[in-house]
Every structure is written in C-alpha cells, then in structure tokens.
C-alpha cells in the first residue's frame, strides 16, 4: 500500500502532482490528492497497455506460423524461396542500430541537448527507412520469382503433377499469342513496327529463330534446354518424373549445403524472365502466405514508427518532450523485438 502511495510519478509532464503545497499552503486545510494506481504517466501507461495487446497480436501471428510450419508435411528451405540470410542479418543489424539511436535521442532530450536529440531522431528515421527499403527489395525479388501470397499472381505449385503440367502448357500457349506491346526488347523485330495494333507474336517461335548473337552464352544453352523441355511436355514418357525434370529446369530448388554457395542455380525463368512459367516449390504456398503476413504486419509497424518519428522531428526535442520520445521509443523497441524473433524463424529455420 505504501509502496504506491509514496512513489513519485515517473514522467516529466506530470507536474500537477508536485504543485499542491503552494495551493494548499495558506488555507489552513490539507489538500489531498489522488495518486494513480500505477506510478507512471498516463501516456506511458497507455503505451504499455497498447504494447501488451501488441504482444498478444504478434504472439498469435508467430504462434500460428510456428504451428503451421512444424505441422506441415513439407516446408521449403530458405533457398527454395530465394531468401537471402545475409540480407536478413543485415536488416537485423539495421534495426538494432535504430533501437540504440532512439535511446540516445531520449538521453539527449533528457539532458536538454536539443540539436543532438534531433540528430539521433533523424538517424533513427533513416535507419528505419533503410530497413523498409531492404524489405522492399526482398519483396520485389520474391515477386520476380512468381512468389506471391495468392493465386492470380502466384506461380507456385505444390508438386510436379498433372495440374502443374497443364499449367505450364497453358502458359506456353499464352506465349504463342503475345500482344505486340508486350514483346520483350531483346526479341523485337523490324516487322513489329509496321504491324497493326491488335496483332500478336509467337514468342516461342521467335526465340527459336533468334540469331545467336542476340542471345548471351547462357541464353544460347538455355534455349536448347527449353526446346527439350517443350518436347518433354508434349510427349512425356514417364510422367511424374518428367514433370519433375521440367520443374527443375524452369526453377531448380537449390540443393542443401546452404552455406557453401549463396547464389541459386539458374533456371529457364531466370535466363528468360519474360517466360514466367509456373514453378514447383513444395510447401511454397503456405510459406508465402505466412511470410508475407508476418513481414507485412511487421513492415506496417515499422512504417507507423517512421511516421511518428517524422512527426516528432517537427517538435523541439527538449526535456519537455522526453516523455513523448520515451513512448515512441518503447514502441520502436517492441518493433525491433518482433524482428528479433522473425529473423531466425523465417530466415534460419
């Protein structure tokens, strides 16, 4: 009981708690004052209440990820889905640095060093933006491999079965009737310019007829592989295995020994990016759903934090604002905390 009765409110903005001696002094009666049950300022209390709901929010997301992942029959290796561990580790480092800079901004503000506080705050904002930039780069790498969380864009198939084979055939048929405007630069023809607007181009035929000097050395060998893959699709011998070969040619799953080589083997989709053929990543659909959900919600939190920092930067960051900076910092540290768990769970497990 006494513990809470005598404690002094933590925040600096709680100055009404100190003033009652002056008010009550001359009137001959004691002015009583109610203390809040928790010895901290309202802003900080609300921030901590919010953070405790955030703990549950992210625990539900992380928990469902763990449960989905370990309950799955097959889960892709990080290299199957083109995750780069060094990039993830670097992003972790960036977030840790930003946690330090916001703490230093708070210390500077408490010491009334306004310019210094502003500089540390700016550094935090820049580091947070760097994190989002790297995340965006990673997302675009996923998208370029046809890894999306949902169907219209996603080109992930779970296994090399008949459904996969017919999806590849359907895409090849599409490539035989590509509208003029969508022909990739390397395969454009003089005749295209004079052709009428509604015309289509058979890209597969055009690739076959392309002169060797228009293609790089890798593309020349890839063209030969592609022709064999097409034959294999139209006349498969031992179907399930042939389709596994087709899938391996289109986008190979890098073998184990992840540490040995960082890059991934090049498939037809990499040699000719315009092919955009369906790929096989066993367990890849569930992986994509959880990956984008987890990192997406985390990125939204980072973006909100950046917004708060941008708003704080418009203030004079002196001792009076220390409470505000502390609350923003609490939020930011929590965002860092979530990433501390996300990084190993997504990149290293």
């Amino acid at each position, binding site marked *: 009981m006494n513990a809470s009765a005598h404690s002094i409110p*933590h925040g600096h903005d709680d100055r009404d708690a*100190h003033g009652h001696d002056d008010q009550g002094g001359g009137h001959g009666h004691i002015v009583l004052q109610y203390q809040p049950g928790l010895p901290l300022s309202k802003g900080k209390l609300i921030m901590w209440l919010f953070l405790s709901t955030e703990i549950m929010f992210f625990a539900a997301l992380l928990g*469902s990820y763990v449960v989905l992942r370990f309950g799955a029959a097959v889960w892709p290796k990080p290299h199957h889905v083109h995750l780069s561990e060094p990039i993830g580790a670097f992003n972790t480092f960036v977030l840790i640095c930003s946690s330090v800079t916001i703490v230093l901004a708070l210390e500077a503000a408490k010491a009334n060093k306004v310019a210094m506080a502003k500089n540390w705050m700016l550094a935090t904002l820049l580091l947070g933006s760097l994190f989002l930039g790297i995340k965006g780069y990673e997302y675009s790498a996923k998208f370029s491999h046809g890894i999306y969380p949902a169907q219209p864009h996603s080109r992930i198939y779970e*296994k090399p079965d008949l459904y996969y084979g017919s999806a590849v055939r359907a895409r090849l048929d599409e490539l035989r009737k590509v509208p003029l405007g969508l022909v990739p630069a390397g395969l454009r023809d003089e005749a295209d310019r004079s052709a009428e607007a509604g015309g289509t181009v058979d890209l597969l035929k055009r690739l076959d007829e392309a002169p060797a000097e228009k293609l790089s050395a890798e593309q020349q060998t890839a063209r030969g592989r592609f022709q064999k893959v097409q034959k294999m699709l139209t006349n498969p011998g031992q179907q399930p295995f042939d389709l596994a070969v087709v899938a391996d040619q289109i986008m190979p*799953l890098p073998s184990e020994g992840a540490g040995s080589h960082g890059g991934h083997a090049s498939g037809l989709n990499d040699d000719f990016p315009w092919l955009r053929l369906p790929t096989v990543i066993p367990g890849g659909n569930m992986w994509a759903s959880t990956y984008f959900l987890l990192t997406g919600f985390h990125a939204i939190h980072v973006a909100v934090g950046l917004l708060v920092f941008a708003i704080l930067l418009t203030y004079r960051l002196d001792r009076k604002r220390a409470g505000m900076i502390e609350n923003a910092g609490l939020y930011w540290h929590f965002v860092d*905390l979530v990433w501390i768990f996300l990084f190993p769970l997504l990149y290293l497990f």
Partner: protein
Amino acid sequence: MSEPTAPADSHGPITRVGAPSSTVAHDHDSGHDDHGDGHGSHGGIGQYLAVFAALCVLTTMSFLTYSSVWPWRDQPHVGWAFMMAVSCTKAMLVVLFFMHVLWEANWKFVLTIPAAMMAIFLALMLVPDVGLRNRMVSQERLLHMARPNDLLLMEQAAEAQVLADPVAH
C-alpha cells in the same frame, strides 16, 4: 521506502507528494529501487553501447548456424534451440535495458505477465487444429498437398541430368 512526513500520508492512496527523492549516483546495480525515478539516465550511454555490442554479437552467433562453421548442420533441432535461446536473450536485453523495464516499479509485472500468458496460450490453442492438421487429411487435400516424396522427386530430377546440357548447379 520513505517514512511519512505528515499524518495525511498514512491514508494510502490519498497522499502528499514530497520533493523528488534526491538522485543517487547510479551504479548499475543500485539504480533499481521501487520508485519510478524520472531523473537522468538509468545506466548511462556506456551501458547502452554495451547492450548494443552484446546484441550485435548475439546476432552474429545466430547467424553462425547458417555458416559452414556450425558443427550440427545435420541436426537442425540443435540450431533451432540455439537460435531461440539467442533470440530470447536478445529480447530480454532489449526489454530490460532499452525499454527500461529493469528500473520500473512492480507495475511492469501486472502488464507483461498476463499478456505473455495470453500469448503462450494463444499459440498452444492452435496446436490441435492447426499443428496436427496433417494427422488426418481429407482426400482432396491429400491430392493437392505436397509430400516429402515430391521433394525427393525434384532432387532426383536435379541429379539425373536427363537433358544434354546440365544446369550449372
């Protein structure tokens, strides 16, 4: 605990607030009294930098499980347990030092422990329906879901080099 300075002070929540207790020079250990004190830095910038260095070292440690230095590559569970231990350590460091929880009064338990319990139960509740979902599968799911032998098939295909020009693996 400070001793009462006026009779009114003994009335529990109705209290008179004195001048802030004089700040003690904070050694890292003498700093956590039950008073939330609003003065100065808790541990000083040197301590923050030490925590920062520890966080960097820990991140490197969990990254080591990915490198070829890691001796238990064939037993993923060792790496998982290690990484989770490292992550929990990092989380504790951030919470205790950067979020100042080490120096907060006892309210910190009121807010964090129920939330943590809730978090753990939320995840546990998912185990029967989601975690064990592949124990019993419908015919349709069986048809479409990937199975380990699909992965095996892909690996065999990669090794078979059926096509004349092998892919540069």
